């Protein structure tokens, strides 16, 4: 009744090609942003911000990165964790070498280091495809994690082998380190994620995105119509790794506060892959939904026995947690292999005809 485009006439190409051609969607996104930027910081407490909102946003960014590669360019990568690590470590190096520079600059620059590494490990994608490529990208995962542990220069010869985030201030407000409040960190992360999502949504609508999708659907045909495989695939790896790198830097600097090698291991890569597939590959909004679902589900499951008054040991809860998450993933893949984004789309279609479906 409220959600239909009747009467919204497009009189120029500009309006026709808008990100949200339906007015209700455009209004909806502004309302959502207003809620995220104003209502959430005012109402949510530290626990909610720190253990739900901030990680969900960071993982969404990483999931968008992987989604650009997997869902749009069709190249499977299992090395996201490693690329996030590259971002985190290079951000750490940059900010310790130049302590006076505004911390946002190292965070955004560290993505470029990750992009360079991503291009390097993306080169095999020119010859290797499908599962062969997926496993080949594990080379980057294992090599990078090994390098983080072995190259002492990366963590400034810290005896604990971990990187600890120093306090950095913008306009005398601590934004990283132990003194930063969760609200400041949340707002900064949110801004970066919003900007990068906007960039991504325009990338995939434009020439680059279309070239990626052509390669995803059939790379020989794409080559025949004049898309340069080398450039396009490597661009996909570069941009995807850029997102992963920034997400990694944010994860360590704005959320964890310290990180060891284990923070970037293979399980991490699988976690992000799950977010993409459960959320819906080839959909940006799906990345957010997938990240929220995969991140919040275990938290919810862990606290569920308390709510209904069951007394279960912590270890048992953890085991049941694993079982339920595994079973739910299978269930989800069976029910909707195209991910939550597809459900969302179906819901919207239904809503347009509601309450008089024909």
């Amino acid at each position, binding site marked *: 009744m409220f959600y239909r485009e009747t009467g919204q006439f497009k009189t120029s190409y500009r309006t026709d090609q808008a990100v949200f051609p339906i007015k209700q969607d455009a209004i909806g996104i502004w309302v959502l942003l207003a809620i995220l930027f104003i209502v959430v910081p005012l109402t949510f407490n530290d626990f909610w911000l720190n253990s739900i909102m901030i990680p969900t946003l960071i993982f969404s960014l990483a999931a968008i990165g992987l989604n650009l590669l997997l869902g749009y360019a069709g190249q*499977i990568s299992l090395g996201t964790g490693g690329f996030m690590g590259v971002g985190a470590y290079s951000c750490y190096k940059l900010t310790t070498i130049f302590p006076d520079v505004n911390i946002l600059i190292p965070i955004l620059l560290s993505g470029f280091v990750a992009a360079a590494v991503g291009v390097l490990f993306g080169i*095999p994608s020119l*010859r*290797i*495809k*499908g*599962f*062969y490529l*997926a*496993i*080949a990208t*594990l*080379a980057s995962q*294992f*090599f990078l*994690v*090994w390098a983080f542990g*072995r190259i002492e220069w990366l963590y400034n010869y810290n005896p604990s082998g971990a990187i600890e985030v120093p306090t950095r201030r913008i306009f005398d407000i601590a934004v990283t380190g132990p003194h930063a409040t969760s609200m400041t960190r949340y707002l900064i992360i949110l801004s970066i994620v919003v900007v990068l999502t906007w960039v991504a949504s325009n990338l995939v609508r434009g020439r680059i995105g279309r070239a990626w999708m052509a390669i995803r659907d*059939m*790379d*020989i*045909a794409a080559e*025949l119509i004049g898309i340069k495989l080398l450039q396009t695939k490597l661009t996909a790896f570069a941009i995807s790794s850029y997102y992963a790198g920034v997400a990694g830097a944010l994860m360590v600097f704005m959320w964890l506060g310290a990180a060891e090698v284990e923070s970037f291991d*293979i399980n991490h890569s*699988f976690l992000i*892959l*799950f977010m993409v*597939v459960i959320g819906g*590959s080839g959909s940006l909004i799906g990345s957010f939904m997938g990240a929220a679902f995969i991140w919040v589900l275990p938290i919810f499951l862990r606290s569920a026995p308390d709510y209904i008054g069951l007394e279960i040991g912590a*270890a*048992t809860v*953890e*085991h*049941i*947690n*694993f*079982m*339920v*998450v*595994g*079973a*739910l*993933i*299978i269930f989800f*893949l*069976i029910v909707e*292999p195209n991910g939550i984004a597809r459900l969302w789309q179906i819901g919207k279609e239904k809503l347009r005809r509601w309450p008089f479906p024909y």
Partner: protein
Amino acid sequence: MSDTTLKPSRASMSAGKRNWLVTAALFAAAVVGSLVVGEGSLVYEIFVSPFLFVVEAPDLFVQVIWEGLVAGTLYALLGLGFVLIFKASGVFNFAQGIMVVFGALSLVGFYAAGIPAILSLLLSIAMMYVLAWTVERVVLRPLVNQDPLILFMATIGLTYFLIGFGEFIFGGEPKTMITEEIGLPSGSYSFDFMGGFVSLQKLDIAAAVIAAILVGCLAVFFNKTKVGRALRAVADDHQAALSVGITLRQIWVIVWFAAGIVALTTGIMWGARSDVSFALQIVALKALPVIILGGLTSIPGAIIGGLIIGISEKLAEFYWGPLVGGSIESWVPYFIALGFLWFRPQGLFGEKIIDRI
């Protein structure tokens, strides 16, 4: 027409030869250069000193090769499980690693419950059948004809489920494999070899023999039995197999069961060398470079790939590892596999990937 098609191929062949020549010349230059630069330089440490060490202590070299062979056998077994399932159902089964743990744990668990060793072994085999049947019924059947990536994710989901389920039933603490009770030997043979001595664990020899027997049985099963023929038909073409009256579902259960038995064997062998714990499931990651090196669809590929990876990883770790701080075993196999894939994108023995418009 033949002229025009032949010319570029001839040209590329000579280019290939030139590449080899250049590589060989570079290598020779590096060796000569490092000899000139002398001991202590990085080039010397990489290109000369490991080989000198091989010549100086051949017994160590043989020992390292043996260790590699043993590890390679286990990788080959793991890879075999992957390949069996991938061939027959097109599923890249990430759960193979946890199936290894699950098989070993159920064997130990049955024995701990007071059941005799041989009976526990049979019960664990039955357990693997139940697992195969359930997986087919609950996971594979509803997901038939889905994108391979979706099926891959589903097997990761299965892995999570089995981790939780296994810990729920058997507990998370490491257990000792009942090596002697099921008749596996222990101890080692040592013998002198060119001035040093080499020691071979009896258990490792048994592992190699059992692996060989298992592979032999599988080969006979695939080539001589009716079910085996059906399996090969399914692996070749699902639709053609269906159209001549082969039941896919049944075949999938059989193939997952076969992979389960392979997993159980791997679990026993690996568990006997270390503990039986959930950490074992990461050995699945060890098998991945093996199968891409050998080719995802090739059983001989898995075996030869396993041996190549096993030996080269141990050699690299032993002779070049100390240069960069050790434990390079985690990534060297992947780079070796990458090197092979660069020249053969379908692996050594995989079906040639043909792209058509």
